[in-house]
């Protein structure tokens, strides 16, 4: 049971998407787990054969518990534990599933195979109607149409989530010596550039300004990399990759901050598609385990709620959180003249064990600098 955030202590295995004997590929989703953050898709971190399922659907087990065994070259456990927290590996007593025999070689057209993967149709359950009994595209489509609708994903228990968030934030305020900085940033150039870009793009590709903020933060971390890190035991471990946890409020209450991966290396259009997908899955179910365990810094924006300044609380084991408020038109001095400009307040809350106000100030200045050159984001 992976640790999907410092506040998670246990999870309930809801369903396996693979069976004993199945081939699994690294990154593939093999199980669904219910946590205080909702239903999470568990990815596998090794390629091999799912040799033995250990935890059965319906079982609630502590984080660190082995869910299943995968035979690579040497047996490995599913879902390694998030860095920074020592696992308590416990294998509960559960009957081992008998490995299913390897299916007989099926004749499947490439198109049917691709479609089956997309539609979640198990080819082994089909009888082909094509030449020589081959499974055709039509067979797959018919099977997909006949599948019962997926059950509605369970709704998040908001009261439980609030308790968990409260515990994590209490720990943060108790253990993390915060410091707070704020900087006003002129968003005029960024918004002008965004408007012009969006005129050229179809609705499916258009950008929201939030993606500019996230990318600017990721690039600025290149100049102050100690903020892109996790606190482990009694030391900081910097991350080369920038996995930005994006704070997403859930309708009806609650909050999650799943990761956008490798933000510093991705183009804005790619990030925007990923962000749209992430927000949608955060609110309707289907976040992946790596998205909850990987963030190396968090970005939160409360501008849409009218908030002007965000005073964030660091989410352990991360060491910094960046906040953005509402963009407001205000008088601003530009080359000696007072003009009306769209301004946003960017804030940094960070762990004093890892950085200080000087470095934090350089970071916010770097974010400002990046947003003055939006074409380079």
């Amino acid at each position: 049971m992976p640790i999907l955030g410092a506040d998670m202590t246990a999870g309930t295995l809801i369903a396996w998407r693979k069976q004993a004997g199945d081939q699994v590929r690294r990154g593939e989703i093999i199980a669904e787990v219910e946590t205080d953050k909702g239903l999470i898709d568990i990815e596998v971190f090794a390629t091999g054969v799912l040799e033995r399922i250990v935890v059965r659907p319906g079982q609630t087990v502590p984080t660190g518990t082995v869910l299943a065994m995968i035979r690579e070259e040497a047996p490995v456990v599913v879902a390694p534990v998030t860095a920074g927290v020592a696992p308590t590996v416990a294998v509960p007593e559960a009957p081992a599933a008998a490995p299913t025999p390897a299916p007989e070689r099926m004749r499947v057209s490439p198109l049917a195979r691709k479609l089956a993967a997309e539609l979640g149709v198990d080819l082994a359950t089909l009888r082909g109607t094509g030449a020589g009994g081959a499974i055709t595209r039509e067979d797959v489509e018919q099977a997909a149409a006949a599948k019962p609708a997926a059950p509605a994903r369970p709704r998040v228990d908001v009261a439980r989530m609030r308790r968990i968030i409260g515990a994590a934030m209490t720990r943060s305020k108790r253990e993390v010596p915060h410091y707070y900085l704020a900087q006003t940033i002129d968003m005029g150039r960024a918004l002008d550039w965004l408007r012009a870009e969006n005129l050229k793009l179809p609705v499916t590709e258009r950008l929201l300004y939030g993606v500019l903020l996230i990318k600017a933060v990721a690039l600025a971390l290149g100049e102050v990399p100690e903020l892109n890190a996790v606190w482990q035991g009694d030391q900081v471990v910097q991350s080369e990759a920038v996995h930005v946890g994006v704070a997403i409020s859930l309708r009806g209450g609650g909050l999650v901050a799943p990761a956008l991966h490798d933000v510093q290396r991705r183009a804005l259009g790619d990030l925007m598609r990923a962000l749209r997908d992430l927000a949608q899955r955060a609110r309707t179910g289907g976040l992946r385990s790596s998205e909850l365990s990987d963030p190396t810094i968090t970005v939160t924006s409360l501008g849409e709620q009218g908030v002007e300044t965000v005073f964030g609380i660091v989410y352990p084991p991360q060491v910094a959180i960046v906040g953005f408020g509402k963009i407001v038109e205000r008088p601003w001095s530009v080359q000696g003249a007072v003009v009306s400009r769209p301004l946003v307040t960017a804030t940094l809350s960070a762990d004093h064990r890892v950085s200080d106000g000087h470095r934090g100030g350089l970071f916010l200045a770097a974010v400002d600098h990046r947003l003055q050159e939006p074409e380079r984001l």
Partner: protein
Amino acid sequence: MTRDAIRATVLRVLGDIAPEADLATVKADVPFRDQLDLDSMDLLNVLVGLHSALGVDIPEADYPKLTTLEACVDYLVGRVPA
């Protein structure tokens, strides 16, 4: 496409974005943001969904014209390709 068919499509797209919403209670003249707690990301996803379902590309400048159910229907009714 009739107004009723467009209205049904808008509601279906809303249902995809906010599956927890009771679509039967959506008020035609109240902004989605206020009654369904949608944010800018959700609203963009609604417009993308309408584009996919109806083939209408909606310029960014027109976003303010699509804030309610009735406004969406009014906007789309003359623009949906035959």
